[in-house]
């Protein structure tokens, strides 16, 4: 059973049924999760990784900017021992190559390519053929390649694009004693 998403995200039903049918984040395809800072990209990523590792699958995260927070991921239910974490020191080219190698190796339930916060100049240098190559390599595999980015990158190669709208901070209490609760 895939991990349920935290309260406030119930409207985002597809993720809840990720593992059961594989129809929401389609297996063997590229999916994109795009949005601005604090739009919930990381929440979706954690939910996806939690659902995959919770089923006993292995997952891989290619973390271009080394932004991954293991603490909040563990709190979201990600089994860290089933997650291969690759940090690319901001080098998008290395990130793409690493993702390519992981897809070729096979056996992963999810390969997440985190390109969020990467400079547009570096992203613009990614040739469109790279996405076609990924799409071809993923065919007939059970792997979900998820790209986390500020704006769409894989374009027509992506089978599903999740666009996340900006969210508003929810503080409780009275100034100056405010407590950040969530974003909605």
């Amino acid at each position, binding site marked *: 059973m895939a991990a349920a998403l935290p309260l406030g995200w119930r409207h985002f039903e597809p993720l809840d049924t990720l593992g059961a049918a594989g129809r929401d984040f389609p297996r063997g395809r590229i999916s994109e999760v795009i949005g601005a800072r604090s739009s919930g990209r990381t929440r979706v990523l954690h939910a996806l990784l939690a659902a995959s590792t919770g089923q006993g699958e292995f997952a891989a995260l290619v973390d271009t900017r080394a932004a991954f927070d293991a603490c909040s991921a563990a709190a979201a239910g990600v089994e*860290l021992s089933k997650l291969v974490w690759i*940090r690319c020191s901001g080098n998008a080219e290395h990130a793409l190559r690493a993702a390519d190698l992981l897809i070729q190796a096979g056996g992963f339930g999810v390969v997440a390519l985190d390109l969020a916060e990467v400079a547009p100049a570096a992203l613009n240098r990614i040739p469109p053929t790279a996405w076609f190559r990924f799409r071809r390599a993923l065919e007939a595999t059970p792997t979900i390649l998820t790209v986390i980015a500020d704006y769409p990158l894989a374009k027509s190669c992506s089978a599903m694009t999740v666009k996340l709208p900006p969210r508003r901070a929810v503080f409780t209490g009275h100034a100056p004693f405010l407590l950040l609760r969530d974003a909605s």
Partner: protein
Amino acid sequence: MFACIHGPDAASLADSFSPFIEMVDQQTAVFSITSRQLGRLKSIRSAVAATVEAAILAARNLPGYTFIAPGEEARVLGALLIDALPPDPELFETFDLWGIKSLSDLARLPENDLAARLGERGLFLQRLARGALSRPLRPLIPASVYEEFADLEHPIKLREPLLFLIARFLHDLTARLKSQSLAAAALYLTLNGNQRRHSLPFPTRDVKLLLKLVEHSLERQPPEAPVAKVRLELIPTQPRRIQHGLFTPAGPEPEKLELTLGKIRGLVGEKNVGYPELFDTHRPGSGRPIGELLPFRYFRPPLEARITATRLWTRMFQGQILQIGGPWRSSGDWWNPDQWNRDEYDLALSDGALYRIYLDRAPDKWFVEGVYD
């Protein structure tokens, strides 16, 4: 037949009879013996019997030389006190209550009733008392070194011929490992005196995989000079045994994954590939989560910031502060150079994002640690 010598120099005496000795303890050695060798034993405190355990019991508890003919074990050992058996306080108390004083008393008890009352352990002790417990000898075999060495007349300058030589070594060494039902746990390659250590994530005898790992290592870090001396050592261990489940999702093949990660390590660096682990600490970002946490993304390294009551500036972004929560003070590891002492704030900025900023109290500087996402 098995012989057992009991005495202070049991090991050296036993060594003069057989190369395959089982040392039961510091003073007791057991080995296999032929009838021709029996004469030499008569001057030593020893025992000869058809089973290992009977020989051990007799040598430890009977004086001088004892020969137990096959089928006579129960009669010879029967005179021994029950304390001659391996100690088991609970069962010995029961034996005491039953009035069992000697091994012959225990040997006479009906097997089924004994098993019903004392279980498997009781049955084991009765078989020992009857001298009927048969087990193979477990000789001490010295650990083999799986190593190949070449001192070359003409140093190798190119990678290909070096790999050819290493492949030959690997074929020989893995064949030796296979003959002993072992696999390699680590590979130590020494080129011109410089050792490279490769710990394998799983035991293997796959020459192709080991050769690929060496190849990746040589690609990443080529030898500094032409290679004149090559030494290859495989560290042996028990082979991997996996029970696959019908309903367990298939994971990456370990051999393939190790090669893939080897390639990625060459690309992004050794320290940037692994799996995340949380520590038993309160250090921000390293400790285990307590309760529910908002998903977070780090800026690594943290962005230095300038802050006023209404605005925040960094080299990546700036904006007006809409709401701010905090401070949350935390400090720790004050006895270490990498101590932390800071005040954290949660900040909603006019760009629509939620940031975690902190005032590092040691240099008194502001940083943006990351963004809630």
